[in-house]
């Protein structure tokens, strides 16, 4: 499954009001679906997102699984462009919308070949965190067929998805 790496989801960055309440609820519900209490979860993400993975999995009662060959539920952290609007962290890049549209199609279809073919350089230019998304393709190849979209929006100019892969 996929959640975005928004730092605002970390408890240490909580304010009195939650600007990402809907996204947060979707992330927690999806990780609870992924992970039974006491279970270990394999995580694929950039180093900075490990804290978020630990938080989300911990809230569901699970622990992070050292990445090896043993089968485990898989949590992937990544997101689309952070340059979707004038107010976005990376300001507006007119290429962001089509990039995210293609990426969203590849993720939700799901299309492992398209995920493997993501243009990494363009992704970096668009501030998209896609390094770990190929692992979703791996999951699809290993038997997951249906993608459930729990969240698909860009409330602060960053494209977020919360996706669950079902067999």
């Amino acid at each position, binding site marked *: 499954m996929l959640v975005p790496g928004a*730092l*605002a989801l970390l408890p240490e960055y909580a*304010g*009195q009001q939650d600007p990402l309440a809907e996204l947060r609820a979707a992330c927690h519900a999806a990780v609870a679906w992924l992970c039974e209490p006491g279970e270990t979860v394999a995580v694929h993400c950039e180093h900075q997102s490990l804290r978020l993975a630990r938080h989300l999995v911990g809230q569901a009662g699970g622990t992070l699984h050292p990445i090896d060959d043993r089968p485990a539920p898989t949590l992937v952290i990544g997101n689309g462009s952070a340059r979707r609007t004038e107010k976005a962290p990376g300001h507006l890049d007119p290429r962001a919308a089509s990039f995210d549209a293609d990426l969203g199609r590849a993720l939700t279809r799901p299309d492992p070949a398209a995920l493997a073919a993501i243009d990494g350089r363009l992704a970096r230019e668009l501030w998209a965190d896609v390094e770990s998304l190929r692992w979703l393709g791996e999951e699809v190849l290993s038997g997951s067929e249906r993608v459930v979209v729990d969240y698909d929006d860009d409330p602060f100019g*960053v494209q977020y998805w919360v996706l669950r892969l079902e067999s």
Partner: protein
Amino acid sequence: MLRLGRHAFTDDTTLMMAIVNRTPDSFYDRGATWAEDRAFERVALVVEQGAEIVDIGGIKAAPGAEIDAAEEKSRVVDFVARVRDAFPSLVISVDTWRAEVGDAVCRAGADVLNDAWGGADPELVDVAAAHDVAIICTHTGGATPRTRPYRVEYNDVVASAIADTTAYAARALAAGVARESVVIDPAHDFGKNTFHSLELTRRLAEMVDTGWPVLVSLSNKDFVGETLDKPVGERLLGTLAATAVCATAGARIYRVHEVVETRQVVDMAWAIAGRRLPARAIRGLQ
């Protein structure tokens, strides 16, 4: 926990105490709320602005025409009852040093006795205990009510303020006032020159460290005016600067004329001090 009569507050909250004068001659509003209906409108306004407490006073602090207890009661008792009836969730404080007046306003619904004159009437603590209301223990350096300071000096004004207010607090406890209903106040300007009030502001954390909740009453006072060479009416910015310093130190209650401005300054300072979360944070965290 801080308990003010009928109302309780957790230790991480700050409270705005809005000044409501039932006087014809107070220094800042110059009788603007002397008429009872005008005073009532002021209460409604400050409630709308978010004040948790109103501090109703029937006698101005400065020297002037003598107001006896009967006259003071006629100014505040029925008014307290009216405010109690209209605003059940509002904390009502009454600024008085007289036990007789304190007893009457508590019967009418007051939650706090704000003894701005530092225990001049020794029976006020007994009244607070009898009605289970809160008491504000202020430091005046022993000044007689309604007198101005004249050549007052201290070896250490902060040490004096701590010694006198905590002794007053102990006296309140001994009289039976609940521990969670005692507040201390260094009382800027009262029995003090401007240098004293500046030092109390600078070293307010020492009062906070006593463990008693601290009230500060800074609003538009002479120490602000003298520091900035500004007349009454042009002291808001200086008041807010002093407020920020006291809030950083951890003051809990702010006795104010301007509720909205003070609330923002206190909330900002408490957030900087790490005692309050930002309202809503997303910048750089998307």
